[in-house]
C-alpha cells in the first residue's frame, strides 16, 4: 500500500437547473443528465474521459451508467443509491480510493430525473415492515419526518413559529444571484408565513425543489491537480458517522453523530468551525440547517434558530450559508450541487454571489449518514 496521497476536487459540472425546471412535461433520462454533467466536469478539469479510472455513480446504476458514459473498464466502479446522504459518502469513498492509490482519477456522477417522472418522495412504501406500519397512519415523506424533529426541537428549545424564515429567505436571496437556480425571486417573511403547510410545522418554503438535473465531480491527487488549469481544491478532511434507525426522525436531531463527525473532521483538517469562509449545508428541509449548525459547533446547542437571524448567514455576513441557494432555492440535487458551489466559491468563480476571500469551505449533511468535508484552496 503506498503512502496516503492528498486529494483534490479538480472538476465540477452541473446542468442548468432553472432551464430544466421550466419544462414540466419533459421526459428526461437520468443517465443523459449525468452524462451532460460529466462532460462539463471533464472540460472544467481539463481531463479526458479515458483518464478516469474510478467511477462512482449515484441514483443511476453503475453498469448501465458506465456503458452510457463510455467508461466501460475503470479500475474501481460502484454505485450509491439515490438518497441525498450519498453525495457526501461518494466524496468520502473517492477520497479513500485516491489516497490509497486504488484509483488516480475518480468521477462521481449523479443523475436525477425526479421532475420528469413526477417523483413525490412520499405516498409509496416498500415492503419493509416500518414503512408499512407508518403508512397505515398516513405517515410518509422525508419532509414529514423532519417536521416531527422540528416540532420537538421547537418544544425543547422554546422556538417560536416563523423561526425557519431566515433560512428560507437567505436561500432565495442567494438563488436570485445564481443563473442556474430554479427560484430566482426573493421572498419576504410575510410570504414565508403566508405559504401553505405541507406537513405542519413545515411550510412550502421549507421544502426542497424536486427537479431534473445532473452533477459530476472529478477528484484526483493534489500532485496531479497542480498540473491542471484550475486552482486545486484540496479535500483537507472528510468524515462520516451513521445514525440509523427505523425512522428518518432522529430523536437527537443527529446531534451525537454530528458531534463525532465534527470532532474528526476538524481534528484531521486542522481547521475549526471559526475558520470557515462559507458553509454548504444539506437542506432537504430548512430545519436541517439548524441541526447542522449545532451539530458542527457553529452555533450553541438549542440556539441556531437565533444564530441564523440578523443576516449572519447572508453572503456578506459573518458565516455565509448555502450561497447558491440550497435545495429550496437552487434545486434539490441531494447535496451534489452544494459540493459544486463549495468548489466554485473557493476558486472565486461564483460571480455576483462570490464570498470575499473564500478559501475554506465546509460541506455538512446531518442525516442518517452524517458527513462533512473541509475543502481548502491551494
Amino acid at each position, binding site marked *: 500500500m503506498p503512502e496516503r496521497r492528498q486529494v483534490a476536487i479538480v472538476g465540477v459540472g452541473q446542468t442548468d437547473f432553472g432551464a430544466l425546471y421550466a419544462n414540466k412535461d419533459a421526459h428526461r433520462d437520468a443517465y443523459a443528465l449525468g452524462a451532460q454533467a460529466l462532460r462539463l466536469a471533464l472540460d472544467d478539469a481539463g481531463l479526458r474521459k479515458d483518464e478516469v479510472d474510478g467511477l462512482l455513480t449515484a441514483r443511476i446504476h453503475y453498469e448501465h451508467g458506465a456503458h452510457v458514459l463510455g467508461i466501460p473498464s475503470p479500475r474501481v466502479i460502484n454505485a450509491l443509491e439515490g438518497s441525498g446522504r450519498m453525495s457526501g459518502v461518494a466524496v468520502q469513498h473517492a477520497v479513500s480510493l485516491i489516497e490509497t492509490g486504488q484509483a488516480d482519477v475518480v468521477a462521481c456522477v449523479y443523475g436525477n430525473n425526479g421532475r420528469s417522472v413526477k417523483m413525490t418522495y412520499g405516498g409509496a412504501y416498500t415492503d419493509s*415492515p416500518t414503512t*408499512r406500519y407508518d403508512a397505515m397512519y*398516513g405517515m410518509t415523506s422525508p419532509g*414529514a419526518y423532519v417536521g*416531527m424533529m422540528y*416540532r420537538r426541537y421547537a*418544544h425543547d428549545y422554546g422556538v417560536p413559529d416563523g423561526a425557519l424564515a431566515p433560512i428560507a429567505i437567505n436561500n432565495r436571496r442567494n438563488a436570485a444571484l445564481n443563473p442556474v437556480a430554479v427560484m430566482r425571486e426573493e421572498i419576504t417573511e410575510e410570504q414565508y408565513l403566508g405559504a401553505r403547510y*405541507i*406537513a*405542519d410545522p413545515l411550510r412550502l418554503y421549507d421544502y426542497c425543489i424536486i427537479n431534473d438535473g445532473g452533477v459530476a465531480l472529478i477528484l484526483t491527487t493534489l500532485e496531479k491537480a497542480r498540473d491542471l488549469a484550475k486552482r486545486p481544491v484540496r479535500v483537507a478532511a472528510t468524515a462520516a458517522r451513521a445514525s440509523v434507525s427505523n425512522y428518518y426522525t432522529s430523536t437527537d436531531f443527529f446531534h451525537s453523530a454530528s458531534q463525532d463527525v465534527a470532532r474528526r473532521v476538524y481534528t484531521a483538517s486542522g481547521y475549526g468551525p471559526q475558520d470557515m469562509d462559507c458553509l454548504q449545508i444539506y437542506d432537504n428541509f430548512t430545519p436541517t440547517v439548524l441541526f447542522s449548525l449545532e451539530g458542527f459547533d457553529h452555533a450553541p446547542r438549542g440556539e441556531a434558530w437565533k444564530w441564523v437571524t440578523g443576516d449572519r448567514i447572508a453572503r456578506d455576513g459573518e458565516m455565509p450559508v448555502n450561497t447558491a441557494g440550497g435545495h429550496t432555492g437552487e434545486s434539490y440535487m441531494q447535496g451534489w450541487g452544494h459540493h459544486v458551489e463549495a468548489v466554485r466559491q473557493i476558486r472565486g468563480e461564483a460571480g455576483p454571489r462570490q464570498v470575499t476571500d473564500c478559501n475554506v469551505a465546509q460541506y455538512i449533511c446531518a442525516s442518517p449518514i452524517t458527513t462533512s468535508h473541509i475543502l481548502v484552496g491551494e
Partner: protein
Amino acid sequence: MDNQKLVEMLPPVTDANRDFWEGTLAGELRLQYGDSGTPRYPESPVDPVTLGEDFAWRPASGRATLWSWIVMHQKYFPAFADEVPYLVAFVQLEEGPYLMTTLVDPPEHLECGMPLEVVFEKISEDRAIPKFKVVSG
C-alpha cells in the same frame, strides 16, 4: 376514510407478525422480544443484540408519551386523500420503542411529552390498528 384502501395498505399478516395482529384484535399491544430481552417494534427477523432468531410476544403496558407530531396537509396516499389535514404522532412506549401512530380525539392544545394510552380501532372484520389518546387529569 376509505377503509378498504387502508386495509390494502396494512402490513400483510405473516408468521413473523401474526401475534401482533392477533393482539390488536384482542385489545393488546404486543411487543416482540428476542433472547436479549430488547423489545422491538415493528417485528424484525432477528434480535439486534444477539442476532438470534427466537422470539416471543409480550403485551406492552399501553402507556406512552408523545414525542412529536405533524399535521399532514399534502395528499400522498389515496386512502387518506379525504382526510387532509390529518395528524400523525410519533410516540415512545414505556418499554422503549418508538412508533408512528395517531391520536384519537386530540385535545386542542397538544404538547410534546404528554402521557398517552393505547386504544384500538377496528378497521375491518379481522384487522385493528393501535392508536393513542391523551391521558387526562
